[in-house]
C-alpha cells in the first residue's frame, strides 16, 4: 500500500518528532540550567534556551514540510536506495581504513618486539621514520585503493598505484616540510 505522505512530508514528520524529543527529553535531561537562571539575584539566560530555539527551527521546518509540501506532486524523484547503500559502504570503508591506520603502527612494533626481543613503544617512535609512516601509508593506500575499486567494480593495479602515490604526495605535503605537523594517527597515540 502506498503511503499518503510524500517523501518531504515524511521528512517533516521525522524532524517534528526529533524536535519534540529534543525539547522534552534531550534538552531537559542533558542541560543543567533552564531557560532562565537566577544567580545572586541576577536573572540571566540559561543554557536550555538556545538549543530550544534550534529545536523550534526544526519544528517549524518540519511543520512547513508537512503542511506546505503537497502530497505526491508527481515531480519527486524516487530515492536511489542502491546509491545510498553504496555511500554507506564508502563511509564504512574510510572508517575502517582509519581504524587500520590507527592500529598498524603499534601492531608492527609489537611484532618487531616479538622478533627482535626489544621493548620498543610506538608512542615513543611516532615521530620517527619509518615508523611514523606505517599507519598512514597502509590505511591511506587501502582507503584510496578500496574506493577506486568500488567505483570501478573491480580491483586494479592502477587503483593501488594511485593510493600509493596519493599517500606519498600527502607525506611530502604535510610531513616532510614541517616539524610541528603530525600525520594521522600519530598526534594522539
Amino acid at each position: 500500500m502506498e503511503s499518503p505522505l510524500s517523501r518531504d512530508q515524511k521528512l517533516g514528520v521525522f524532524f517534528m518528532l526529533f524536535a519534540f524529543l529534543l525539547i522534552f527529553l534531550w534538552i531537559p535531561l542533558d542541560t543543567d540550567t533552564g531557560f532562565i537562571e537566577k544567580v545572586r539575584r541576577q536573572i540571566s539566560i540559561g543554557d536550555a534556551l538556545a538549543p530550544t530555539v534550534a529545536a523550534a527551527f526544526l519544528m517549524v521546518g518540519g511543520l512547513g514540510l508537512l503542511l506546505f509540501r503537497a502530497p505526491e506532486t508527481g515531480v519527486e524523484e524516487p530515492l536511489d536506495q542502491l546509491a545510498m547503500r553504496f555511500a554507506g559502504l564508502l563511509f564504512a570503508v574510510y572508517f575502517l581504513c582509519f581504524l587500520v591506520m590507527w592500529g598498524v603502527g603499534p601492531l608492527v612494533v609489537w611484532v618487531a618486539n616479538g622478533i627482535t626481543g626489544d621493548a620498543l613503544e610506538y608512542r615513543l617512535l611516532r615521530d620517527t621514520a619509518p615508523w611514523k609512516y606505517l599507519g598512514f601509508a597502509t590505511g591511506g593506500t587501502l582507503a584510496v585503493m578500496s574506493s577506486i575499486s568500488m567505483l570501478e567494480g573491480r580491483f586494479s593495479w592502477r587503483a593501488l598505484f594511485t593510493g600509493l602515490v596519493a599517500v606519498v604526495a600527502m607525506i611530502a605535503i604535510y610531513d616532510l616540510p614541517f616539524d610541528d605537523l603530525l600525520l594521522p594517527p600519530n598526534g594522539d597515540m
Partner: protein
Amino acid sequence: MGTLDYIWMGILSVFQGPELFSIFGLSISVTLIMIAIGFLLGIAVGATPGLAGPIAMAISLPILISIFGFSPDALLPVMGFLIGVMKGATIGGAVPAILFNTPGTPDAYLTTLDGYPMTQKGNARRALRVAHFSSVSGDTFSDIVLIVCAPFLAILVEGYLDLPEKAALLILSLAFIAAAVGGAPAKGLISTGLGLLAAYVGTGEDFYPRLSLGSPALSEGLPLAAVILGVLIVGAVAHELTTYWRERGRQDRQDDPEGRDNQGLSLRLIGRIWPYICRSALVGTVIGALPGIGSTLAATIGYTLGRARHEKRKRKGDPSFGEGAPEGVAATEAANSSVSGANLIPVLSLGIPGNAAAVFLILAAESIGGFTPGPSVFKFSTEQVNPELVIAFGLFTCMFIANFLNWTIGGLIMRAMGIMTRVPKQMLLPVVLLLTLTAIYVQETAMVAVWITLAFGVVGYLMRVYGISPLPFVIAFILGGRLEDTARQAFASTGSDPWFLFNNPIAAVFMALSVLTIIVALRLDRRSQRSAKVSS
C-alpha cells in the same frame, strides 16, 4: 589617522609585508606570491569537474597555518591565498562547461547552454575568451561595490544598532538564509535548526557542557573545522562519488573540442556583449550582497534577463540563447562571478558569511586570530591605529591584485587548464576525501576529529540526498554561538527584560521581517508546488 591613511597602510601591508625574495632589489612580499599561488590553484580546481574552490581552501588551510603560524602577520598571506583560490575557481569553472559540456562548478551549469554549442561550432577559444572577459568584468565591478559599501554598512550597524538590535539582526539573517537558500524554505529552516543545534553541543555557561551526552569528546564542543569540512566537503565528495558510481555506464563525455577556430575577442564582440555583462554584473552584485543566496540564482536571473534582451535585439542569423550565443555565455559568467565579491559584504560588515568561500575566510580568521570579521572592524579610530581595519584594507588590496592577475594572465591560464578535465573523477575524488580527512587530523591532532568529520560527512550526504542545502547549516553553526552571546548580553543590558527583542522599534522591525520572510517564502513554495502539480 584618517581614512586615507588606513587605506594606504592596508596597501602597504600587502606590498611591504614579510619579504619572500627580491628581484633587482625590489622586494616581493610573501602575500603577493600567496595570492598568485592561490589564484593558479583556484583556476586548476575550478577547471576540474568534481572539485571546487572550497575543497582547495579546506585542504590548504592547515598547511597555510602551519607555514605562517598564528600571528597577525599570517592573516594577509593566508587570506590572500584563499581570496586567490576564490577568484581563480570562479573563472576556472567555465572551462569544462565550455569545452566538455560538464560544469566545473555548480554555478557554471548555465554556461554549458551556450558555451558548449559554441565549442561544437568550432568557436571554443572565442567562448573561453568571452567567459573570461565577462567573468573578470563582473568580478571587478562586484569588488568595487564591496569596497564602497562594506565600510558604510558596518558604520551604520555599529552606529545605530545596540545589542538587542544586533541579536534581532542575526535572527533576521538566519531566517533569510533559511528561507532563501535551496529549493524549499522549510528545508532551509531544518538545515538552520540542525546547524544551531550542532553549535550548542558541549557549550554554554554552566559547568556541565550541555547536550554532550556525558561524552568527553563532545564536552568541549564540536570542532568548527571538522563539522564544516564534514558537511560541506566530505558530504559533497560522497554525493559526487555515488553520482559517478550510478552513472558510470554512461559515456556522455565528448571528444576533444575541435580547435579549428582562431577567433579572438574583437572590439565589436566586446561591444555586443557589454550590455549583457553590465546587466548581469548588477544582478549578481545585488544578489551576492544578500547572505546565503548563491551564484546559481544570479546566473539564472542574469541568463533570463539576457535572453529576453537578446530575443528583442538580435539580428537575423545570430544564434539564439541556447544555440551558442556569446551573449549567453557573457550573461551567465558575469552574473555568477559578480556574486563572489558582493558575498563578502555581509562577511566584512556584519560577520555573516554569505557563501562557502566566505565560510573558509571566517574559519581562517578564527583559526589565526587577530581579525574578527564584523562591524567592529571598520572603526576609524583616529588616536590609535585599528589593526583590524588595516587588515580589511589589506584584504581589499589582495582582491584587486587577484583581479589584476585575472585580467592579465587569467585568460591564458584558463585556456591551458582544459587538461584538468581529463583527470578521471574516480581516481581524483577518493584522493580528495583522504586529503580532507588528513587535513582535519593535521589541524586538530585527534582521531576523534576524523570521526566527527566522517559523521558530519554522512549528515552532509543525506542532506544532499533529501534536497536540503547544507549552507544554512554551516552558517547557523558559525553564527550560533554569537547569536547566543549577543542575546545574553542584550538580556543583561536591558535589565533582564524578556521582551528585549520586541521593545525596541528597530529590533521589533527585524523580528517582524524575520517572521514575514519565512511566511512569504513558505507561501511562495506552496504556490510553486501547486503549479508543479498542475503541470505534471
